């Protein structure tokens, strides 16, 4: 079974400051890793994903994340945030075993609140 922990329920930050949203996971099998973003009153949109290869993954809107297998982490970073980045961010994992059904296990989400 897998689980995902996002310890920070809310992260306030000033515009143009850097930000890191933390994600740790637990799994008995190898996983794929994802970050999704949800803007107010909308569905989820994929920010980035780690499937294999380089542990540093770049996504849309200037976000990037680094997979750290030894620490079972997949933290999301952006060097300079904008007001428009205000949204809820979800970390998720999916079992990469052969025959897996691609269902996602989500963390509880982190609300990024960018202030002017």
């Amino acid at each position, binding site marked *: 079974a897998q689980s995902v922990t*996002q310890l920070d*329920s809310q992260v306030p930050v000033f515009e143009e400051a850097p930000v890191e949203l933390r994600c740790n996971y637990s799994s008995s099998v190898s996983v*794929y890793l*994802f970050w*999704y973003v949800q803007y107010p*009153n*909308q*569905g*989820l*949109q*994929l920010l980035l*994903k780690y*499937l294999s290869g380089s542990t540093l993954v770049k996504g849309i809107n200037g976000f990037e994340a680094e997979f750290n297998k030894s620490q079972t982490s997949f933290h999301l970073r952006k060097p300079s945030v904008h007001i428009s980045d205000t949204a809820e961010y*979800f970390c998720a994992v*999916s079992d*990469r075993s*052969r025959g*897996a*059904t*691609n*269902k*996602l*296990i*989500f*963390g*509880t*989400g982190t609300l990024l609140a960018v202030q002017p």
Partner: protein
Amino acid sequence: DVKVTQSSRYLVKRTGEKVFLECVQDMDHENMFWYRQDPGLGLRLIYFSYDVKMKEKGDIPEGYSVSREKKERFSLILESASTNQTSMYLCASTLAGGGTNTEAFFGQGTRLTVV
């Protein structure tokens, strides 16, 4: 442009009513999912389907059922709605297989209020 469409953005239903939430995808995806989103709990999987007429329970199936008669359509059914089912419901779909096929596409969500 890929699309997952949920039939309603907002619904208000009475306790005890039978409620149908509809989801349609136009990407010929094999897998479809229903999640429930609540503040502080993230998204929790209710049911998923990996083929027509095939379904499996997720983490919180109690009080719900599903139907998948056609590949593109996946319905969530609340047999007798209760106030604790007031929530945001999100539908998603993926291709079968791993790797890049694991990317999930989501609908806009249906905010259901049971009074």
